[in-house]
């Protein structure tokens, strides 16, 4: 009796240990990716088809005959900041004070002008692979331009610069002190009056930040697209994109100080998670004042 019960106790302990050992799964996967499922059949299929040329995707209704438009559209509007306009915060200059301290530099991430116009809102056409985007022939003359992004007065001038992938971005230093311009993987040292040419081979879906590691307050953006339909709003919040092809296009609206992607509703202007569909007709298309609520922005 005694022997049986001690053996039974031993078996109980062993099975408790065994249950702890069973059913262990791989650890350390983040919550969202935990549900990423590997499709074994697809794995085999991908491995077997590395030699084959991809068949051309069947042209479905997306292959509407591409006809060059004869009339072109202008799109304009004004971004307005809703709420009390915050003052631009001054920057404390910690390096090269004799040179950089002279220019009353401010934090340019949220600049609201008189009449509450919001500056530096970027609006551009979203990439749509299924539909050909016609570009007005007038833009051909500027397609190979060299566009300058300047280190001037210890800030980037302009703060946000649109550039096309066919153009050359020229990083330049107009200041007496040396800067370096860190953009993507490049970071050239720029002494006084030095230039460095940079090319984008692919358009970017978001403006690319440019920083200086010596003057760490310096931050600017370059909007790299493959077409000229990009606008950055001015001090009054006004923007204009000229000579668009007529039709419905999806636009991206971006601002550097927004918390996540922007959303706003202003009449027929329905901006959701940074994207808005707009129909433009030949001639002037004025969206009027588009209000962006103060809660969408974060104070830096």
């Amino acid at each position: 009796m005694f022997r049986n019960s001690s053996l039974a106790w031993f078996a109980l302990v062993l099975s408790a240990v065994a249950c702890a050992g069973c059913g262990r799964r791989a650890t350390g996967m983040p919550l969202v990716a935990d549900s990423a499922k590997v499709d074994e059949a697809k794995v085999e299929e991908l491995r077997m088809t590395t030699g084959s040329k991809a068949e051309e995707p069947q042209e479905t209704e997306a292959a509407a005959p591409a006809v060059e438009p004869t009339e072109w559209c202008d799109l304009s509007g004004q971004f307005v900041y809703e709420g009390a306009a915050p003052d631009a915060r001054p920057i404390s200059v910690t390096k090269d004070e004799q040179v950089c301290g002279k220019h009353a530099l401010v934090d340019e991430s949220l600049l609201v002008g008189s009449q509450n116009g919001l500056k530096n809102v970027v609006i551009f056409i979203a990439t749509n692979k299924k539909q050909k985007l016609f570009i007005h022939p007038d833009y051909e003359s500027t397609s190979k331009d060299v566009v300058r992004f300047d280190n001037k007065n210890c800030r980037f001038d302009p703060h946000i610069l649109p550039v096309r992938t066919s153009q050359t971005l020229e990083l330049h230093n107009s200041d007496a002190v040396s800067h370096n311009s860190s953009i993507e993987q490049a970071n050239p040292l720029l002494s006084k009056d030095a230039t460095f040419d940079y090319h984008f081979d692919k358009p970017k879906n978001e403006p690319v930040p440019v920083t200086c590691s010596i003057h760490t307050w310096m931050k600017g953006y370059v909007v790299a697209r493959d077409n000229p339909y990009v606008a950055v709003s001015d001090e009054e919040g006004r923007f204009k994109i000229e000579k668009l092809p007529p039709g419905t296009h999806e636009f991206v609206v971006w601002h550097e100080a927004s918390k996540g992607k922007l959303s706003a509703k202003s009449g027929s202007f329905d901006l959701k998670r940074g994207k808005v569909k707009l129909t433009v007709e030949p001639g002037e298309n004025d969206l009027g004042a588009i209000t962006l609520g103060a809660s969408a922005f974060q104070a830096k």
Partner: protein
Amino acid sequence: MAIALASAWGALLLVTSGCSPQHGSPEFRVNLQDILQESQKATDDFRVTGREEDDDAKAEKKANREKLDFVATALVAAFGTPDDPYLFAEVGLPSDDPKWRSLEPEDRKKRLDLKKIELAAGSPGGDREGKQRGLFRQHCAHCHGVTGDGAGPTAAFLNPYPRDYRQGVFKFKSTERNAKPTTADLKRTLVEGIPGTAMPSFMLLPNDEIEALVEYVKYLSIRGQFERDLAIGLLAQDEDIPKTGAELLETYLTPIVERWAESEAKVVRPPEPPPSDTPEDHLASVQKGRELFFGKQAGCLKCHGPMALGDANDGAAEKDRLFDDWNKNKNAENISLWLLPKLELKPRNLRLGIYRGGRRPIDIYRRIHAGIPGGPMPAGGTEQGGQKGPLEPDQIWHIVNYVRSLPYEPISRPHAERATALLKERN
């Protein structure tokens, strides 16, 4: 008695089944951090929110989930698992495969050697012939992680963190700034270690094991870049899911492999340094280097400080501090994805004589010429066939001589100077 024996036997079977190696195999960790850093506003697309979502948001989340599933599938298809590596024939082959031998030498250089990768992959231990296997997990994974993401179990205790290979950016190499390291660079890192960091020297390993580890690092780096490019392309840039392996290979994998293959052509080979064989010539060079170091053109002291102690940003506010690429995009919005806390990068204290990238003159030349990719150190030299940088090769050599003289200046060696002074007093 029979029942007791049977139950003990049953319990034993249960225990051993729980201990099977299959359950204990690690998996590669998914990289969401890089995707979100590429699209800095995209966090909501991935967050599991409890909020009411409209149909558009739900549809977008569902499409994202399908794309994420495809990314996971494509990774297993193209690279296998930590225990069982795989490579497309265009990316890598085992060197004992007849196809490998029938390749032209240039084509062979473009491919990884799957045999070496298999040696480094899998669980640590010996194989049937007594050869060591599982080298990466034995020697490297505790710091660099099974995925090569620089976030293994010991990483959190280290400063600097172990390298995250997944961006394909390596700081200390002999090539131009945006080129990949050569195989020799990676081997040198393993053999010499990185002084001033926790990366030890693996000089005592046999040569074939070191080469296997180098190959595995390239494998993990290519895998990481592929994961990043595929995920960013599908999720942040709305590309379509590739339908065949060929499309996947051509669009996402081949560009990465080609960049690695052209690293040999991008090695920085400077011209001869100006003569400094005599003490006078050398001191003149050091003096010129000193003027350049403190001059406006190079601006070295802006980060390295007026005494070259690397203290220019000490005491500065958070926004004025420097961070390397792996840390600079960590902010409050994406904190749930950080694998490790945000770590500041301090400019090098040049008076210690510890140089992470190597202390030969050519190593320091390359740091100044190409800068340090992944970090704030800019490129000062002229890239081959590229535009003129602010510093001529001669000027860089002068700065190299000055920098190498810094640890021997009296002010850098206060104890030695004090000892010398005491000895003089006594005599």
